[in-house]
């Protein structure tokens, strides 16, 4: 790493207004799609579709509104470390409750 001059202010990466408007439109369409999909009987897939749309919308917010697209790779590393911890929480919780009946122990 070389030390940069104090006076050398970086030119900030400025996204065009049109990008923000497009992301906004995509998010609104995603919301309409979620509501519409909820009224169609897809069986177990209703849940999967709702979550898939929510994850897609979140990705747009994180990449564009939160500028992660423009950040160094340190930031995605921090985000994924947090999501990994969340995964541990969910997997262990559901594995616990999901297998409690298997032992046949009274009261479990």
């Amino acid at each position, binding site marked *: 790493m070389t030390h940069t001059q*104090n006076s050398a202010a970086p*030119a900030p990466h400025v996204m065009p207004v049109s990008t923000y408007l497009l992301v906004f439109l995509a998010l609104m369409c995603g919301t309409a799609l979620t509501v519409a999909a909820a009224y169609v009987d897809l069986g177990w897939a209703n849940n999967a579709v709702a979550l898939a749309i929510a994850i897609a919308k*979140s990705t747009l917010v994180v990449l564009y*509104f939160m500028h992660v697209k423009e950040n160094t790779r340190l*930031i995605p590393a921090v985000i994924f470390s947090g999501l990994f911890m969340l995964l541990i929480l969910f997997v262990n919780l559901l594995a616990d409750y999901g297998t409690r009946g298997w032992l046949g122990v009274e009261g479990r």
Partner: protein
Amino acid sequence: MSVETHGASDLAHHFDSYEQQKESATLGMWTFLVTEILFFGGLFAAYSLYRSLYPEAFRAASHTLDIRLGALNTAVLIGSSLTMALAVRGGQIGKPKVTFGMLLATLALGSTFLGVKAIEYADKFHHHHVPGALFHFEGPDAVHAQLFFSLYFGMTGLHALHMIIGVAILAGMLRPALRGAWTPRNHNFLEGMGLYWHFVDLVWIFLFPLLYLIGRHH
């Protein structure tokens, strides 16, 4: 912020460059947001568990929520994320008036969200759908429907608390915005507030389908 305390220099003395200062601010904010993800994550985990255990109760209780108000609030919050992003952009390009106007719009939309939420909460109290001694539910499995409403108030309440804090911070940012406190070289506070606001939007993006849209085709 360094803008206020260091007078002429908006580069804090312990940083080598504006780039390093910005990266540190962004990293710090994201570290906080990761703890927030896990904070809300505990509630989402509890929700997933109880919904998988009592699907009937959750479906019946979810149907008492007003889908139009939920969708309206989703749109309001997405709109506020857009205005927040444009406020930060105003700082990036050094346009204080744009930042001020967009922060004001974000403040208005955030308050609208809270107003709609208040209407929804009042309706829940009116119908005795608030967990506790006066809880009453006509649908099947009322005991576990109470669990749904506990999670509903816990999750949307924690979310609303984040909104209230956000709105208060936004209100405090209006004067500095007009003064031009945030410049292309240093708008780290503004950027950090943007990250916080978008995070609150992210939580709602998951809360809306999970709370309002369970088994609506039945």
